[in-house]
């Protein structure tokens, strides 16, 4: 499964709106077709924002979104694949 082997990881922990979406867009543009991007954020709004961005962006497929706890802090992980 491609979510287990992202080609690139964007760490936007500690950054708030609008940075997660903007950094996601920048990294997504640099991906090759078929590759998956992992975005790790601490902004809870990123769950809705990155979904909205992926829904409106051609060639971006949101594979999954996960909420986890790392070092006692809520972390939101997003996996986006670039279309072939």
């Amino acid at each position: 499964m491609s979510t287990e082997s992202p080609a690139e990881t964007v760490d936007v922990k500690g950054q708030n709106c609008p940075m997660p979406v903007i950094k996601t867009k920048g990294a997504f543009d640099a991906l090759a077709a078929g590759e998956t991007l992992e975005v790790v954020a601490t902004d809870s709004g990123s769950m809705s924002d990155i979904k909205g961005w992926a829904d409106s962006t051609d060639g971006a497929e949101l594979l999954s979104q996960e909420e986890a706890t790392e070092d006692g802090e809520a972390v939101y992980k997003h996996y986006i694949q670039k279309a072939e």
Partner: protein
Amino acid sequence: MSTDTTVSAGGELSAEDVDALAERIDTLEAELADLRSDVENGPKKMVIIATKGTLDMAYPPLILASTAAAFGYQVTVFHTFWGLEILHKQNSKNLKLSSVGNPNMPVPNVIAALPGMDQMTTRMMQNKIADNDVASIEELIEISLESGVDLQACQMTIDLLGYDEADFYDGVTTGVGAASAFQEMVEADIQLLV
């Protein structure tokens, strides 16, 4: 929708096959029309007119502009009157929050009007911004410019306030007026006044 309309071995189409194909052609024609219009009209556009220069009102245009750019929009922000302060290299670092006439502030107007109160509320807001990992105005300007947002400074207001082109961030467009802003608004999909 199914795309694998099967044709019977003898090459004859049933009435259902013909209907399915007709529907498929309609869908493809509609998609083609959308694509044609995208190609002919170029990317979607947003224009924001930024007229305010307080710390709280500097954020919305820059956040929306950089976000719209991430959505593939071609974005123009036309800064006029106090909106110019956002693009001014020095003044943008010292934007203030007014406590007078702001019902969201925890102090009544008579106290808010005392000397030094704006500095205090501004410092409170700056601390909150830093504590909540919100980007600074300067960072948002850099990100917007990097994302291809056209940050424009109204020439009439530059002259009115006695500013110089060199006072603004590198990459800011000067020498533009209401007519060019209006023309961009006419062509835009979204127009906002902040």
